[in-house]
């Protein structure tokens, strides 16, 4: 009896100890695929995999290493990354193609061509000195983690910290802690399966079950636009991570313009197994986003959704709960079919979003160049404040005095606020931020010129003749609530559509913060002749220098053995002092 009691006690004690050590934070995972017909034969696929993790002591997560914590769903590598380099929020995107916002509307997370990484790094107290090194190491770690060669972002010559265009999306831990922003873009970074593979390994069900089954790299990368994204931010409860993949497929190319399309017809995959780990608030869902106004999306969707919601801004959401559908109806797989014969509508005749931006290059020759950013406010009555961020690599020396803002037809315009930082060669890029009010039904033209520098020969990339990339202009604004935002715009403040549907009150239109990216530009930079004769000259000169250098030494220099002692004597402090004083010595 006594022994039994003791055993029970010990067991309870053990249980207590174990429970205390493997203190599992509450974790949550849900997944969704948003489908939408963007018109003109473009189909939108938005994969969202949302992880949340409740943390009681927030400071603990950010500051201390989480080595003794247990993780079930939340990718530990991401959490470790954030903790190790004091990153409170980061957004990594690798995209290919151009998000054609004039035709497709604003994306919920629009991304520029190439790679973009922006992060808020903790910079209070002793950490303020370590921001640079933290950023550098963080970039290297991210680079390795997602097999992307973005190491160049680590250098100050690429990274900047804009003042207004980027704000933290997550809650700042304990509200007021100082944080520093680092933003870097690399335009010519491609996206491939080698990025998608490490990314998909972070998913709890991998590509084996649930939405992940649809991640067919061959089909998804063969698209007009695709983007691999990692969004990590703190929330009021703890941490939130969203792994997203966006693709826009042109059916004219993918299936030669056939009117009918379905998930299976475009991706050659279907969901046959529910991801049982998707136990979050919204589980595992397939959502179809339809436009109801002003030009309704008339495609007929099959099968009938289990539920549908009317959202703000003339959007309707059809909800297919995958877990339920696969369980209840005992189907082999779930597929959603669209049927709507479409004709091509030119971009000009489409109901356009309120603000459209375009960037292009002006000028000829390899000495000077110029850039025009045309931003048009198409709203019938409302003036819109836009923030324009322009980052110019130091190789192209931006001439601030040539900055011109014109409104409509040759009307000089002034920015409300200007933030400008001149570039420093090899140290930092030029940064220009403008806050401008664009009146309704007018277009703003921002133009400036730059000189193209001939850089040092060892600073040219291997493909020097390809040219230099000018990163896209970032235009941020709050879109008026009554404007018709084309699909698939979603408030960026919510984590995912899942969260939006959870909050049913979102049917009243509300102003939406939009950040959009223009085209990147390829600038033909001046370069020396890297041709064969040039190389031969360099090589021959080097060989001659090496060869003749040692011959010269042998021929002209006399080797002699010197007595080390006097040198030693002179080398000591007293010796040198004595030597200095010698001239003063009385003979």
């Amino acid at each position, binding site marked *: 009896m006594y022994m039994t009691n003791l055993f029970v006690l010990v067991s309870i004690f053990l249980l207590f100890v174990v429970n205390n050590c493997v203190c599992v934070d509450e974790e949550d995972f849900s997944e969704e695929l948003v489908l939408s017909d963007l018109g003109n034969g473009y189909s939108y696929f938005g994969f969202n995999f949302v992880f949340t993790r409740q943390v009681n002591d927030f400071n603990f997560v950010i500051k201390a290493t989480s080595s003794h914590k247990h993780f079930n769903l939340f990718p530990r590598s991401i959490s470790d990354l954030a903790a190790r380099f004091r990153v409170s929020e980061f957004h990594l995107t690798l995209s290919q193609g151009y998000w054609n916002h004039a035709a497709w509307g604003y994306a919920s997370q629009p991304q520029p061509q190439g790679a973009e990484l922006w992060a808020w790094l903790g910079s209070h107290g002793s950490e303020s000195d370590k921001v640079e090194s933290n950023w550098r190491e963080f970039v290297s770690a991210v680079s390795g983690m997602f097999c992307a060669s973005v190491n160049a972002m680590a250098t100050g010559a690429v990274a900047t910290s804009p003042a207004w265009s980027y704000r933290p999306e997550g809650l700042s831990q304990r509200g007021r802690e100082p944080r520093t922003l680092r933003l870097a873009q690399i335009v010519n970074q491609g996206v491939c399966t080698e990025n998608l593979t490490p990314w998909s390994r972070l998913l709890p069900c991998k590509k084996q079950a649930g939405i992940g089954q649809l991640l067919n790299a061959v089909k998804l990368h063969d698209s007009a636009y695709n983007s691999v994204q990692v969004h990590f931010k703190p929330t009021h409860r703890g941490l939130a991570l969203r792994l997203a993949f966006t693709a826009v497929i042109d059916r004219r190319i993918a299936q030669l313009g056939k009117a009918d399309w379905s998930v299976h017809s475009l991706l050659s995959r279907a969901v046959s197994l529910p991801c049982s780990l998707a136990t979050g608030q919204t589980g595992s869902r397939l959502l179809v986003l339809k436009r109801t106004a002003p030009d309704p999306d008339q495609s007929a969707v099959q099968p009938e959704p289990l539920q549908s919601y009317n959202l703000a801004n003339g959007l309707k959401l059809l909800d297919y709960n995958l877990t339920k559908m696969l369980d209840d109806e005992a189907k082999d797989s779930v597929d959603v079919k669209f049927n709507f014969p479409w004709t091509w509508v*030119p971009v000009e005749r489409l109901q356009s979003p309120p603000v459209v931006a375009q960037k292009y290059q002006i000028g000829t020759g390899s000495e000077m160049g110029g850039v025009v950013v045309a931003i048009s406010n198409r709203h019938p009555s409302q003036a819109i404040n836009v923030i324009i961020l322009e980052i110019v690599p130091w190789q192209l020396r931006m001439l601030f005095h040539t900055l011109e803002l014109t409104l409509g037809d040759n009307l000089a315009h002034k920015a409300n606020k200007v933030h400008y930082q001149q570039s420093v060669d090899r140290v930092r890029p030029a940064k220009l931020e403008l806050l401008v009010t664009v009146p309704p039904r007018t277009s703003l033209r921002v133009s400036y010129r730059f000189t193209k520098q001939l850089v040092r020969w060892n600073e040219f990339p291997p493909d020097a003749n390809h040219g230099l990339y000018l990163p896209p202009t970032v235009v941020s604004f709050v879109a008026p609530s009554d404007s018709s935002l084309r699909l698939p715009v979603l408030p960026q403040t919510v984590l995912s559509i899942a969260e939006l549907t959870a909050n049913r009150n979102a049917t009243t239109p509300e102003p939406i913060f939009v950040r959009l990216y223009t085209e*990147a530009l390829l600038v033909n930079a001046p370069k020396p002749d890297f041709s064969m004769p040039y190389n031969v000259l360099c090589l021959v000169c080097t060989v001659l220098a090496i060869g003749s250098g040692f011959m010269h030494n042998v021929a002209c220099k006399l080797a002699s053995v010197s007595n080390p002692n006097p040198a030693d004597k002179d080398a000591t402090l007293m010796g040198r002092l004595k030597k200095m004083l010698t001239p003063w010595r009385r003979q």
Partner: protein
Amino acid sequence: MTGKIETTIKVFLSYHRFVGILLIVGAIGYMVMLSDPQFNNRCYISEKALSPGVVEEQFNQVNFINDYYADVQKMYTVKNLESGKFQKWLEEEMQKIGLDAYTQNFTFSYPLILGEKKLQGINAVGISRAYRAARTEALVLMTPLRAADSGAASHERRTDGSVALMLALAKFFRRQTHWAKDTIFLFTEMETVGLQAWLYAHHGESSLLKPSISVSDPPHRSGSIQAAVALEFAGVSGWQRARLHVEGVNGVLPNLDLVNTVVRIAGKHGVRLELHGSDRQPALLLRSLLYQASGSPASLHGLFLPFDIPAVGLSGEGRAASSSSSATRTAGAVVEAIWRSLNNLQERFHQSFFFYALPAIDRYVSIGDYTPPLGVVLLALALAAIDSLVVGFGDGDASTKPKSAGGGVVGPVARLCVMAGCFGLLALVAPAYFIRTAAAFRIDPGAGMLIGLLAVQAMAAAFPLMFPNMIVACHPGALRLAACLSLGLSLGAVSLVNFGLAFLSALPLAPVCLLAAGPDRLPAVLRFGIGAVALAAASPIGLLLGGCYAAGGARSLVSAWTCAEYGALQGYVEGQLLGSFTYRLNCLMLLPCWLLAWCQLFARAWPRPAAPAAAAAAAEETSTESEEPAKDK
């Protein structure tokens, strides 16, 4: 020892005219030799990424071409083109295909020739976005819009074939997934004007075209243009034989890799490509140089080259041999293959040659091989210059006399050079007035301009007669030095910009300049007569007329005159609208150089006078005085 060397050099230099002529003949011989396959090289692809002809072309949609061709036949009339209906139709067709298409209006006014009239034109443009790329790079496929109602004289030059082909290719390209660069399908009206308007507007520099062309901003754009191909085909199956155009404005050539890619792909598909309509060896090289020298683009593609965009032109030659579907398919497959190759490009065209001459379509002469002949000609001029320096500027026998009758040596020659330059400026500026005056007399601009230029030339020729003192004051040796040096330097400078122009103008001008003084043994009158005829023939106007006469097969003087009218006007107008240098160089460099040579003729004919007796005596006195101390020393 040094004395011996000095004498040898002096003796050698005293034969400089003979040596010079030998050198020039040698240069011509060398150039002719270069056209022989033994002395030039076979073209090779330097940029391996291009790998032309490696892909298996997928274009098989002959029905696309035939359908569009049927539509184009119906729509493509002068009336539809002028009203812009055809361009609108093109825009709609391209939009149906799924391209970002637009039409672009431009107005062209050129008061000098058109008067108050303003011409309206419309370009149609469609941008096919590369499926997986981000609008950073683009390629241009273009054709001019030239409608001709059947039976019209220009019926041969119509481009219905290339319009239909481009639409078919647009439809085909739009469905392909493997493009890395956007394709801009460009249909331009009014020849160079429309293309110029689009090019400047695309580069955001349309203000530079004012006031002659005003153009609207394009609503859609693409990235930096990597290459361009201009097509001009009548009918859809005339692809058995085609003509390749390379020379651009100012004789700028596209990268040899691009030319070579097109040639190889055409070869693969059994399309016979020709260059300048000839394949006889020395003639073809000469024609290449002539095209280059003219400074006017060989086809519309030439307008891309000043923008640093490599471009070639392809045009249909003769009539279609057959209208079989295989010939039609070939047309599509050739362009597709070129496009696949160009899409492979990782960097801008930078390997291979930018400076070359083509003695045959698949052979090239590199810059290292073709510049020596010009160098040899310049050497002949340099020898003459050195000789006049060595002989010195003394007077006759008393070569040590420091001062001569006319004051300094440099002054009179410099004055003459400035006057010669003024004639050049006159020839450059005056045509506008000639043409306006001609318009007042209802003479057409070309004739007015040519007559005016002849007048300027005649004035220049009469210049020594009008101001004999200026000639007489010059020391013949110094004049020769100035003439040879200015010609040599001008040719050297021009050769960097336009080798053809420098070489071809060196051939008549250099010997004339060397021999202007004429061989000593002939009687003075004969010497002067021969010199005058040779110099008149080598004058810029003389060359233009002579060239036109020769080009017309030396048959009709009237046609030579009309051709020269057209040539002069074209040179002038292209200089203003396309930025071609040829007319300007002819005026500001070659005419003054010619005038200096011409003056040399008179300086020789009029020996320096034994100036008025008193002055001469005074001069003698001073000279003897000044000579004495020298002797003492």
